[in-house]
């Protein structure tokens, strides 16, 4: 076993902030949806709005980070090893087979993760933010006045927002479980907290050579490293 630096400081901050915000938005959101009553409707709406704006600010920073560091490339979906990864979760994991992909700072996501996270980033989250903003700036139609968005009703927006919320809950459940599927049950969780992951020494490196056990210089973008 060796320790490898996988998750940068900002990346971890962003992940945990995002986790907390999504959970909070989920709780307040489903209360607004009428599923249960916890904070009280008025507070739920107020908190949901505040959390939504915080999330948008966080997204702005994350987008900036992804592009300046070149991290967005991590999420480019690939066919390579996609089947191998799926086979691993269906068969290999029960036979104590090694992970088919190797986690490195240059390639921290397996092909399935790339697919799911890319879907979250380009579909679900933007859809939630988009419908959420429409929801927030929606004004009921009225004469000779344009106060924000003038659309005839909330229904479509609200239903789309709800669909997104259900998808996120399902993702959340699966995500919590998949944390336990690292090289040990807790290794993934530890990595997201400390940044370092214990990775078994493997002979057959299928994906990428681990470049270094040291963290790369913080200012160096991925693109530059590749060059």
């Amino acid at each position, binding site marked *: 076993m060796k320790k490898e630096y996988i998750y940068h400081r900002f990346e971890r901050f962003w992940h945990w902030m995002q986790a907390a915000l999504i959970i909070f938005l989920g709780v307040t959101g489903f209360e607004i949806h*009428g599923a249960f009553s916890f904070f009280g*409707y008025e507070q739920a*709406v107020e908190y949901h709005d505040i959390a939504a*704006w915080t999330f948008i600010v966080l997204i702005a920073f994350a987008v900036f980070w992804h592009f300046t560091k070149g991290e967005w490339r991590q999420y480019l979906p690939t066919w390579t090893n996609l089947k191998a990864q799926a086979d691993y979760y269906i068969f290999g994991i*029960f036979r104590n087979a090694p992970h088919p992909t190797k986690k490195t700072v240059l390639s921290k996501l397996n092909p399935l993760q790339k697919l799911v996270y890319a879907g979250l980033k380009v579909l679900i989250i933007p859809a939630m933010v988009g419908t959420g903003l429409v929801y927030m700036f929606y004004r009921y139609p009225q*004469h000779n006045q344009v106060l924000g968005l003038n659309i005839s009703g909330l229904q479509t927006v609200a239903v789309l927002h709800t669909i997104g919320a*259900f*998808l996120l809950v399902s993702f959340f459940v699966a995500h919590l479980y998949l944390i336990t599927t690292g090289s040990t049950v807790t290794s993934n969780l530890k990595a997201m907290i400390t940044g370092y992951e214990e990775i078994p020494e493997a002979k057959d490196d299928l994906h990428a050579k681990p470049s270094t056990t040291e963290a790369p210089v913080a200012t160096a973008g991925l693109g530059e490293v590749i060059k």
Partner: protein
Amino acid sequence: MKRIFLTLFVFGVFAAMVLTALHKNSTDTPPLTKLKEQYSAKKQASVDHSLFPQLKKKFTRPQDVTAACISCHNGRAQEVMHSSHWQWERTEYIAGKGIRSVGKRNILNNFCIGVTSNEQSCSRCHVGYGYANDKAYFNDSLDVDCLACHDNSGTYAKGNETAGMPDKKVDLSYVAQHVGLPTRTDCGTCHFFGGGGNNVKHGDLEEALFDPTKDVDVHMATDGEDMQCVDCHTAQKHQMLGKMYSVSSMNRNRVRCENCHGSMPHKDNVLNDHTLKVACQTCHIPEYAKVNPTKLFWDWSKAGKLKDGKPYELKDSNGTDIYMSIKGSFKWGKNLKPDYVWFNGTATHYLLGDKFDPSKPLDINRLLGSYDDPDSKIYPVKIHTAMQIYDTKYDYLIQPKLYSAKKGDGGFWGDFNWQTSATAGMKAVGLPYSGHYGFTETRMYWPINHMVAPKEQAVKCSECHTRDDGRLADVGGFYMPGRDYNPWVERIGLGMMALTLGGVFLHGGARFVVSRKRKRNS
């Protein structure tokens, strides 16, 4: 280059956050304190009427008082005679019916039903003297009853069944010397007792408003601003602002909360958003009939039972009438949550002679509006239901003669005979009566505008934004968060969650079992 970009970006995010924060605080502070100041200052009369020689004399006829009034206030009587307080009708456009002259004079309701043939009694609340029948002469300015509205002595009263003449006991000279702006007492004497008793009709206008606390009405509270009716129902040339949709049809001449409070009076913008589709009254009048009950159901078909040949009355344990031989049986309600409807300020009315389908309840007035109509907002209403008399052959409502001057004149309250009552009443309105009558269910919608509660008691978000039987459960045409959802999205969403959870447990369980086996084997 990167550093500049970074700086610009951080600055941009910061600016966006500041702008958002500023935007949230940009609403005007509600001018409530200013309003309170303005209405706390009590108006001082500019003259003392008790010193005028014209009024320092013995008046025997009320018309002489009017003559004295208009000897100074010339032209005012003509203004009154142009008002609906005098005419009891006005020209209105009614959707689907065109331009009609309608009002108390000729519109039926489902309380005491109609004025025609009963003028002698009904005109107790007419702002004139001698409105005894529908042919009454309406042109004499001396018949204007100035005192009914301008009495500040609290001693003026009209007599029972005197066609609007004052009660014999009233000291006209004393009243004439104590006149001024109309008080709640003046207005309430008629408007609190419409339908033949306290709070019968409106539900939000009743004798408790003579001396209400803030909990009953935050504007009129005598422990608060003690506002008078005419503070909101202002008048130009004796034309009062405001009207009731039991007799009015058009979106005009309305008193609006917004006139003083503005259209976005809340600090919270989410609440201000509501004002485009939700009337102020909807949230700020959580309950009506707060002190005394209001009539909800009136069954005329039960009227006319006699004990030993004599009419009688039954009261419940609270002293409220539940049966009267002259009127039938009643149901009352107190501390009521209003019903809610879309309303755009226009209404339609059942008019005398309109045919209807007696197999369904008949709306005597209907408030028009819908979510899609930009003029419409959700308003609170009281719905009053009745069983009332109609012609079973011609399928229209009957105007019965109720008031009876003497036995045998057809008046139901003397003869207790629907047949002669219907004959006399329909003759008076000039419509044929087939001789066959029955009773049909009718409904009236009364917008609730008074008994505004202190803001702390306003309706809470969750009273409407809820799945279980909220206040707006029956108000349709739109999606309301918290109340509405798409059942398919709900089913599929929950199914997906269950499948994910099931998959996780299955997969995890299998891993657990396999790893234990492996441990045992090794």
